[in-house]
């Protein structure tokens, strides 16, 4: 094999060794990198700033004489604007958030996981792509539109078919919230099922299992962490949802006794009253405190789910 084509004494002019980048290119690059560092730091500042700011605005109420944290969390008497008897108990709203979210999960989790199982194990690839696009579009619907649907469509259906006195209640909010949470349960659930190695499936099939047996006995147990994360993220979505529940659950600040009762969630309450609370008043500060409470709740839920999800992706 002759190498004569390249065996002439190498007549390199060493042009690359002598090349240098033009000054404007070097300075331009330095400027751009400075801009990148600036954006990085400002993003960090904004991110930390949100935490600190919301906490800071809530803080003053904690020092007020007639405020106590235990009353805040455990009393259902919410009279922030009363003249003589100001009370800041949010238990009724916590119950509202809890009841609507729990009922929504009761509906959304089976359907969401079922859809995830269908997408991952049973359907053909073209159907899967179409279905995934549809679910992604479902996820994009703004919450005010969902609230509108709850207020107009759902409430009439509920009154008509269940004879409830009023159509905006826990059930309405739960149905709407379920439809809003399903896409995220499906998407994370499908990721979790896809992360189960194919060798599990092959082993099961080799033993003669049907696909259903495979799902029930092998895949669901193997993917249970990811599926749990999917449910948690759905819960996080539910707890944090504002406009849809504001419009669909009514205006009653009380602990619900049936799914046909109107309630108010933590989020909806802030939205309903923030407009009327004068700046820097006690009412204003306590609304920020509810915001802090929400922040902590969603933080914990999302953090847990995120840790689980990252564990999956790393595999």
């Amino acid at each position, binding site marked *: 094999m002759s190498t004569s084509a390249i065996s002439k004494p190498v007549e390199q002019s060493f042009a690359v060794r002598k090349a240098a980048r033009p000054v404007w290119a070097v300075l331009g*690059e330095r400027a*751009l*990198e400075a*801009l*990148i*560092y600036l*954006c*990085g730091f*400002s*993003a*960090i500042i*904004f*991110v*930390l700033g*949100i935490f600190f*700011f*919301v906490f800071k605005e809530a803080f003053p109420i904690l020092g007020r004489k007639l405020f106590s944290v235990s009353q805040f969390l455990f009393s259902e008497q919410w009279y922030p604007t009363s003249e003589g008897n100001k009370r800041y108990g949010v238990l009724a709203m916590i119950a509202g958030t809890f009841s609507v979210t729990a009922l929504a999960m009761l509906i959304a989790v089976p359907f*969401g996981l*079922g859809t995830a*199982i*269908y997408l991952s*194990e*049973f*359907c053909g690839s073209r159907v899967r792509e179409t*279905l995934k*696009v*549809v*679910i992604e*579009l*479902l996820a*994009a*619907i*703004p*919450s*005010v*539109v969902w609230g*509108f649907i709850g207020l*107009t*469509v759902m409430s009439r259906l509920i009154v008509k078919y269940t004879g409830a006195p009023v159509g905006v209640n826990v059930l309405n909010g739960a149905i709407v919230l379920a439809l809003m949470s399903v896409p995220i349960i*499906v998407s994370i659930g499908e990721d979790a099922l896809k992360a189960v190695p194919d060798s599990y499936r092959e082993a099961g099939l080799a033993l003669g299992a049907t*696909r*259903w*047996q495979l799902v029930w006995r092998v895949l669901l147990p193997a993917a249970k962490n990811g599926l749990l994360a999917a449910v948690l*993220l759905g819960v*996080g979505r539910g707890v*944090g949802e*504002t*406009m849809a529940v504001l419009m669909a659950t009514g205006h009653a600040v009380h602990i619900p006794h049936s799914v046909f009762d109107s309630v108010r969630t933590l*989020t909806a309450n*802030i*939205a309903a009253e*923030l*407009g009327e609370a004068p*700046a820097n008043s006690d009412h204003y500060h306590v*609304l920020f405190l509810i915001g802090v409470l*929400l922040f902590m709740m*969603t*933080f914990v839920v*999302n953090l847990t789910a*995120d840790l689980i999800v990252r564990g999956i992706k790393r595999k």
Partner: protein
Amino acid sequence: MFTETPLVRRKQRQESLAKWVFCGMAVSMIVPLILIVGYLVARAWPSLSLSFLIDVPARGMTEGGVWPALVGTIYLVVISLAVSAPVGVLAAVYLNEYARDSWFNRMINLAVINLAGVPSIVHALFGLGAFVYAARFGYSIISASLTLAIMTLPVIIASTREALASVPRSFREACWNVGATRWQTIRAVVLPNSISGILTGVILQVSRAAGETAPIMFTGAVFFKAVQKGDLFPYGLREQCMALSMHLYTLSTQVPGVKESIPFATAVVLLGSVLFVNATAIIVRSYLRSRKKW
């Protein structure tokens, strides 16, 4: 050679049953959606027309169109994304390509991810306290846009980081070995190959910014503003504005006696715009993915 024993037949029945049950669950999520959208369009039909988009609301908002709200939403979306998209993308480049792996940066990561899941009302609280009061921008388009920018920033950072991380490290190492600077590596290899993920992430936030109500409700969006029909630049930056999402909320909860098809038509316009933007993102993503280079 393989006979169908009763066991095999029972297994096959189980199999199809399972398949149909799960298929049914998937479909039962989609069908209500289609029915609802259909119902919305049907109830909106009497009012849906081009003039609905261009007219202004009249007679105490019981009649007319949505022009001021449409323009207001466009203002808010454009301004907020003009801030959050460049800052978010460059910040993600910093975090993924320049920042050293230290406890501080891991904490920042955590903060960004968790901020992406914060309830929208908390963003409203932040916007009110920080931009309306502390920064003294007052109730204005500036306050509302900045609030939306802060809302979309963490998600843009997170999705851009994911796109950047999908480029294999081996490409970067090959560039470093020949003496390329960090920026040269990013420009030559990392950015061109993550552009589809970055673009998709930004476009998806466009639809989110257009659809959110709570963050703008308390920072600059307003019930009603007098605007000329068809005026393209009716708002000053320090003024308040109307917005489609807010408009839908007020029409359906605070305006008695409105002709019924009008809120439905508003919902259809909002929903249609959002779905259109998202469908565009999905198309862009699959087009760019099909041109994947490795």
